[in-house]
């Protein structure tokens, strides 16, 4: 633990902050109140073992541990009709599957289980640390669900109901069937290998009846492998032939089935060679590779599916008798709803009464509130920031968010996947191999009919595209797992291939290159009576009760400057413009230049927010969204990798250009609508560049799909994460550079593997065709070439970041 980093989350500690908690008999420094509170509750609960055994640091806790909005959301989950949607009731207790936010390693799972099982009313709590799900069984008579969730939030973990129907079931079934197949093929292969050792090495002093016996038991053990464990390959082969795109499973299946039939023939008629051990091991290795791929892919999906934040399930409906709270399901278009401050809208609608700032970040990724008033359309997912709004419902089911999600899914499904090089090679190879094998069979049938079958099989076995079919999947699996280790969760196997050929990376600005939260950058004083500290103090006093990013930034800056915040009276809020109030009996105005100009006729200095008294403008505030700490380092590394960079943002051109200058990014495009972003990427692609897009907002959705490869930030919107090829976990950007290097390395290794496998096959083919290759050499050659390919692929995992 370095001196300057938080014991809880390892983030740097701000200067001058002294917060310590005694953990494991030593005072430990904390970086913020959030971490401090969490660490204290862990210590108080006697759960410090967590710190001893964790293998990853905890997430930084920013702001309130349990924000009011979250509290509201939790409380709604106590309503019986809502609980019916995600709970199963058994006797006195209820059971729910919850998704967890903030789980980093197995120690977190222990911490959560331990903490929950101590709460009154909890019957059982089980955490799955790889899928980040919590299965909670509790007694509603003793504890409300909201109370349990709140106590969990106090430890820094957010749990919300998870719809288990989504895709878990089919994945679980698939995974289990794979595991059983792997187990069967592994155990059977071990046996068959032992018999094979006896057969190869004891063959000379073994009596024929013993040899025949060993062959029969090998046949017995290999049968379940070929008839059961290898089944998925046959299915995939048949599907691919039906689709007229024979994949590698075709030669795999042909080789397996033919070798098995030929070996069985050899066993029954006691002539020729048997290859039971080779085909069993072959099946086992192939299954392992497929399983690893399945798990890696699912892990990426599960983590992003967890981040699906529930839209509220209840709304306040306005009727002639007053306000009633009803489930969203009962809402019809045309009805009126009341949206209180802090609430999330669950449907699309038009504002019919009231004016307020709303947070559109779920749609745009930009957290800055936008002023909305009567007649404006608001979409599901917006969060009301200030004043109550009356909304007439226009759409309940097919909301903007829902339709964007659907469009994304269609775009993803229709996106032409680049046909992989290996697949193409294997396809031609398969066809060539089949032709050569039948030619060999024909030739030897007319010359030495008694040997024809065996020579043909030698051709099929020796040149079995085993190494060829392992070459790409093993490298890709190793690459994906290497990516996962560095915090990039790949959702498609194509990602690595595309990362390797990237010419340009385009970043979204807010929330991607930056944290997406504003802070005060500059305070300009326009009066001699006031200094920075006082200006901040006054502004913070006026904004103390407000709840939007600019106000938060001012309040934070005042706290950082140790300005004494005073009490403001008679506060009047002009939504979207500014605020005025009395401090120490004097009237002050704080707001946009337009707002100040209304108070004082005449031009106001150009700042984002101005502070004025009744006579004159006192101070101006400018804000900045600071870039992530490692953004500059990332850009430097990318330049070393020969990748050009660009920032494409919906923010103003000047802001975008300033940030690009600061980080040494070559191109900056501001004022972009989602369509502009899309057009920009299309234009670059038309120029022959392969573009990697990194983004976080819903407005990045289309461009993430369009780009050759895309990475979404894990704190970004769900839409972005769905449309991207990969999700970047954590708050560091550097893994993006690592990911590109892993992609390049993977591509290199795939080429080496293919070259080796093809080379081996081409050398061995003439030998086998001419009947010069003894069968055991064919088997050894096949196994050795596969082994080399697998070991080569594992080098990717050792790549340093």
């Amino acid at each position: 633990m370095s001196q300057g980093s938080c014991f809880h989350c390892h983030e740097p500690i701000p200067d001058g902050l002294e917060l310590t908690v005694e953990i494991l008999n030593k005072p430990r420094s904390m970086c913020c109140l959030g971490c401090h509170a969490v660490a204290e509750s862990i210590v108080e609960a006697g759960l410090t073992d967590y710190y001893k055994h964790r293998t990853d640091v905890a997430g930084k806790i920013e702001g309130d541990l349990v924000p009011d909005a979250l509290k509201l959301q939790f409380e709604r989950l106590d309503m019986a009709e809502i609980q019916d949607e995600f709970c199963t009731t058994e006797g006195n207790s209820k059971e729910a599957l919850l998704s967890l936010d903030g789980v980093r390693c197995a120690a977190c799972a222990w911490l959560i289980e331990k903490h929950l099982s101590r709460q009154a009313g909890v019957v059982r709590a089980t955490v799955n640390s790889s899928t980040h799900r919590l299965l909670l069984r509790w007694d509603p008579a003793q504890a409300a669900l909201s109370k349990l969730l709140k106590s969990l939030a106090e430890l820094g973990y957010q749990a919300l109901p998870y719809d288990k129907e989504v895709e878990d079931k089919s994945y679980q079934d698939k995974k289990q069937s794979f595991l059983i197949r792997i187990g069967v093929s592994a155990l059977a292969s071990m046996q068959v290998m032992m018999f094979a050792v006896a057969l190869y090495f004891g063959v000379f002093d073994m009596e024929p009846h013993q040899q025949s016996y060993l062959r029969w038991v090998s046949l017995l053990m290999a049968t379940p492998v070929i008839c059961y464990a290898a089944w998925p390959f046959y299915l995939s082969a048949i599907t691919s032939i039906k689709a007229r795109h024979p994949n590698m499973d075709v030669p795999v299946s042909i080789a397996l089935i033919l070798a098995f039939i030929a070996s069985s023939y050899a066993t029954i008629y006691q002539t020729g060679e048997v290859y039971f051990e080779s085909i069993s091991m072959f099946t086992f290795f192939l299954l392992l590779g497929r399983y690893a791929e399945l798990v890696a892919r699912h892990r990426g999906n599960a983590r992003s599916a967890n981040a699906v934040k529930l839209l509220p399930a209840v709304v306040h409906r306005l009727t002639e008798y007053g306000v009633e709270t009803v489930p969203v399901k009962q809402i019809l278009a045309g009805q009126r709803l009341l949206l209180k401050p802090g609430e999330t809208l669950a449907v699309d609608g038009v504002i019919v009464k009231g004016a307020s700032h709303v947070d559109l970040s779920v749609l745009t990724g930009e957290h800055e509130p936008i002023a909305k008033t009567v007649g404006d359309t608001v979409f599901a997912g917006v969060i009301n920031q200030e004043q109550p709004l009356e909304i007439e419902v226009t759409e309940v089911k097919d909301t903007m968010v829902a339709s964007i999600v659907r469009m994304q899914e269609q775009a993803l499904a229709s996106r032409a996947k680049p046909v992989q090089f290996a697949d193409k090679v294997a396809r031609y190879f398969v066809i060539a191999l089949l032709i050569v094998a039948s030619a060999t069979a024909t030739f030897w049938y007319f010359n030495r009919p008694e040997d024809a079958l065996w020579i043909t099989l030698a051709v099929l076995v020796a040149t079995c595209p085993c190494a060829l079919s392992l070459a790409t999947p093993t490298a890709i699996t190793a690459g994906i797992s290497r990516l996962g280790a560095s915090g990039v969760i790949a959702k498609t196997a194509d990602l690595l291939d595309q990362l390797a050929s990237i010419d340009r990376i385009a970043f979204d600005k807010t929330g991607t290159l930056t944290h997406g939260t504003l802070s005060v950058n500059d305070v300009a004083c326009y009066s001699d009576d006031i200094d920075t500290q006082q200006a901040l103090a006054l502004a913070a006093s006026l904004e103390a009760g407000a709840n939007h990013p600019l106000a938060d930034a001012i309040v934070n800056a005042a706290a950082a400057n140790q300005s004494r915040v005073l009490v403001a009276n008679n506060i009047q809020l002009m939504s979207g413009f500014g605020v005025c109030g009395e401090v120490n009996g004097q009237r002050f105005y704080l707001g946009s230049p337009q707002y100040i100009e209304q108070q004082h006729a005449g031009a106001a200095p150009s700042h984002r927010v101005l502070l004025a008294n009744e006579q004159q403008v006192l101070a101006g505030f400018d804000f900045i969204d600071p870039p992530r700490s490692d953004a500059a380092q990332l850009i430097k590394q990318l330049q070393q990798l020969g990748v050009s960079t660009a920032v494409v943002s919906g923010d103003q051109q000047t802001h975008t250009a300033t940030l690009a200058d600061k980080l040494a990014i070559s191109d900056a495009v501001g004022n972009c609508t989602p369509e502009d972003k899309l057009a920009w990427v299309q234009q670059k692609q038309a120029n022959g560049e392969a573009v990697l897009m990194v983004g976080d907002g819903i407005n990045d959705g289309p461009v993430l799909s369009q780009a050759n490869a895309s990475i979404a930030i894990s704190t970004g919107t769900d839409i972005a994460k769905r449309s991207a090829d990969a999700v970047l976990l954590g708050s560091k950007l550097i893994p993006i550079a690592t990911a590109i290097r892993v992609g390049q390395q993977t591509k290199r290794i795939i080429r080496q593997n293919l070259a080796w496998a093809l080379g081996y096959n081409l050398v061995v083919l003439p030998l086998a065709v001419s009947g010069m290759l003894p069968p055991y050499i064919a088997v050894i050659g096949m196994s050795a070439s596969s082994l080399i390919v697998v070991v080569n692929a594992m080098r990717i995992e050792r790549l340093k970041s």
Partner: protein
Amino acid sequence: MAIIYVLIPIAILFICVAIGVFVWAVKSNQFDDLERHGTSVLFDDDEPDDKGQAK
């Protein structure tokens, strides 16, 4: 070497039992979370309350 006529069937029997046990383990979800249970042995059930802190 006549013994192999006895030993190998026994070995095959063991394999069948092993496969049976493995299938049971998979079906009862024991392979769902491999990280978690590997570390659970590290954690004490109860932290000795040496500091006299309130639980």
